[in-house]
């Protein structure tokens, strides 16, 4: 009785949609019925009953194949507006039997899972490109399977929804360009330390012209006597409008993170500092502005 109750619960959670092959089965049944009934061909009757019974038993088998799957959204990394990211979904097969022919549907994307071993889980990444920054909700995901006979498309809605923040699209001037304008960032050089390849972020005065003559573009590096004060990005000077400013700041924040530069942002009503707040917190403040 318990298993029957479980089956009924599973059955209720699954929607069944007819496919073109269900129409084929109906036509086949009708044709076989005519062939059998008109001339009492028992072989045709047997085929007819087999087709009917198999199509009939395909329903519960398909339901049990899909219905035991449990899906949970898991943290899936940063998402930026207008950039392709991913939403991660952990799918667990809560049955001792394997699940077959599974497709995961997200917002206009389909990812095949195909096979999931019994009592095992798998992580599926759904590609997602948010259109704008801010809070978002990822919903209407479902699992689909045509197992076993393709006569029905079974769908299991993922009730859980994913809520997160899309950070502002990182775009604008590069950090190097910004730093070129901010001389103080570099501090005071004390002793020549060596050469390294020019990557666009160094001052022009540090270019090692001798190497340029040889066809290479290197810059001189120095041990610094003292570190200059933190980089400070001013919201109001970062761009023409709010969106451009937020995008610009996002880009610089990410570049600073990459280069391990501490920084601060002068933000309306609030100043942000990378030594006090994590990068994600700063990006979130920018996203939710």
């Amino acid at each position, binding site marked *: 009785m318990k298993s029957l109750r479980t089956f009924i619960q599973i059955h209720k959670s699954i929607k069944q949609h007819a496919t073109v092959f269900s129409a084929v089965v109906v036509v086949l049944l009708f044709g076989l019925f005519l062939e059998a009934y008109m001339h009492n061909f028992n072989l045709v009757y047997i085929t007819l009953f087999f087709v009917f019974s198999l199509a009939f038993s395909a329903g519960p088998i398909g339901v049990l194949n899909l219905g035991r799957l449990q899906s949970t959204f898991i943290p899936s990394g940063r998402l930026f507006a207008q950039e392709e990211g991913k939403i991660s979904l952990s799918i667990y097969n809560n049955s001792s039997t394997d699940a077959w022919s599974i497709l995961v549907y997200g917002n206009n994307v389909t990812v095949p899972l195909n096979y999931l071993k019994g009592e095992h889980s798998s992580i599926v990444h759904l590609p997602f490109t948010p259109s704008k920054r801010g809070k978002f909700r990822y919903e209407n995901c479902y699992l689909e399977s045509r197992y*076993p006979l393709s006569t029905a498309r079974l769908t299991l809605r993922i009730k859980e929804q994913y809520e997160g923040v899309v950070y502002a699209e990182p775009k604008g001037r590069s950090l190097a360009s910004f730093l070129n304008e901010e001389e103080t960032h570099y501090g005071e050089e004390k002793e020549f330390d060596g050469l390294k390849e020019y990557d666009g972020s160094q001052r022009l005065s540090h270019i090692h012209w001798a190497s340029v003559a040889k066809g290479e573009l290197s810059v001189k590096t120095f041990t610094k006597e003292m570190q200059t004060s933190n980089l400070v990005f001013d919201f109001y000077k970062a761009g023409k409008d709010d969106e451009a400013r937020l995008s610009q700041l996002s880009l610089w924040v990410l570049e600073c993170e990459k280069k391990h530069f501490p920084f601060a942002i002068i933000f309306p009503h609030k100043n942000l500092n990378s030594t006090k707040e994590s990068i994600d917190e700063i990006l979130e403040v920018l996203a939710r502005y």
Partner: protein
Amino acid sequence: MKSLKFLQDTKLTPLRLLDMGYVIVLLPLLLLLKMPMLVFALIVVAILFFKKTPASNLLVMFIFFLGILAVYLSLYGTFSFRGLSRLKLFLEFLVYVLFVVVSMQRLTQKINFYLLISPFLFLALSLFFYHGILMLIYVIFEIFFLLWMILAHRMQGNLLEGFRSSMVMFMYSLPWVVILFIFFPRISFEHATYGFKSETVQRMGHDGTMYIDSKALLVPSDRIVMEVGFKGEIPLSHQLYFRGSILYVDKKNHWEPLPKHIKRKNKDFYETKGEKVEYKVTLYPTQKSWIYLLDMPFEAVKGSTLDLDLISTVKKPIEEPLHYSASSSLSGKFHDVLDKETYKASTAFSTDSNPETYKVVQEIKDTYATPQKKVSAIIEFFKAQKLTYSLKPEALDINNSTDSFLFTKRQGYCVHFASSFVTMARMAGIPSRIVTGYKADLGNALKNYIAVKERDAHAWAELYMGEHWIRVETTATAYGIEADSLRQQSTGVDKERNEVMKKINLYLMYVKYQVETWILYYSNVRQLQLLQYAKENPKFVFTFVFSLILLLLMTLLISAYFKRTTYTSKAIEILQPLMRSLKKRGYTRQKEETLHQFFLRYVDENAEKKEQISAIQAVDKLYEEISYGNDISQKSIKALKQIVKKSF
């Protein structure tokens, strides 16, 4: 095991799976294809085999025109607008067209909707052509195979998993098929007459004329003429006479039926006395019009006529297996009022022939007054002559065949006994005739089933006394059986020398007969009979329900077997009861947690359960030894099993 490994390792592409499905469904239809289509099929297969890339449009067009040509040549001469009305030809045409279209699509190596559903169309079409027991087995196999291929496709071409799942599905549907087959309402349409039947071989043994010279039809063959299933028990040996034709006219070297101008009337129902018996007959093609009924039939079989001589015939010669139900009374006599012409025909004899016999008969006539006494005297005379039953008798003098048989050669078989007896009876003034047909042998019976063979062809006499025809088994007057004939009769042909083989053969025939009766020729009549029987026999209902439950349990067991989880190693499989027990207690192995870590976690958290803990530690140790120490001996496996039992 090798084949299992092969299945496990084999993952086929959708196109290969489809190809396998096509091979299976096309096999029976290949027998139907005419030579041009077979050549076409061979060309297509050769192209598919050698050309691994998709065919160009040019090649597809070439195959199209080649296909049209093959269809035209295959149906040339038979195809016309009139011919279209013949269903078989139309279906054949459909098969050809579908075959050409499928070949074209397959060459492109693209799977489209039509290529996917065509195997089912081929299967449905093949059912129009074959109705035999072999096809029954093949159809069930075809259905299973197609199911396997569909599931393997859904399971990424995994043949082993596909096989397991298809077995499960097949077993789930089997009880439904049985129930539907028995109870689904039928109507009374007969089988269509087109298509290939299971049996088209002509049977011999009885042909309506009885030769007594060297042409005498002697067929000591074991081929089956008909199979009979009795409703109750099989009648006794001396009651198993199946009437064929009646012979009245002595033509010296042979006997013939009544001349065509003498027509005995047809009748639907006969009042006969004796025990009533009901039976079903499967009569195989004889190319003759007689259908055989047990002496003496009550009524005409549906679709046949029964005349005053109780001879049953159908309009057309029997060219395919005929199934009919009949009822008879187990009586050796029946009432008849002879018309003048029939009386004349049944008393005629040649006064120029058989003088010695005539002399003997005159003495009998002078001695005995009543017909009964005369007949007894003739029987006694036959016995006194010490006639030998021989399947290889010396040739008789045809002008005086009775004299020759009774006084000179004294050897013969049923035809000679019957012919001479009837001649003597007629000389004594008793109207008489010869009946030919079959006398079934109980040696070929099993339960309520009996197979009648060509060697059972027989002839006996019927004498008209007191407005009744009375059967006389003339061969019973034989004094002895000639040694060779005895051997041939008792042992049969070489293949049946072994009694065990004979018994097995009989069982197989019985099974075949039952399958044909209850599956291939199951009809609304049989359905109603079954329901009626169920109403009258509560015990049968119980047995039936019990059988269905048994079938259900069997299918569930088989599906459970194929549904069972498979494990990567025997050791892990042995651990499963323990894992399930721990799971019930809330301990599930975490992702990326080794078994050792899992057991340690349980041990740490349940230190107070000392006995169980030590068992689990032992399991852990032994499992490690088996899995990583490659200790896969039976002894270790057995030890692991025992410890696992103690651990939960």
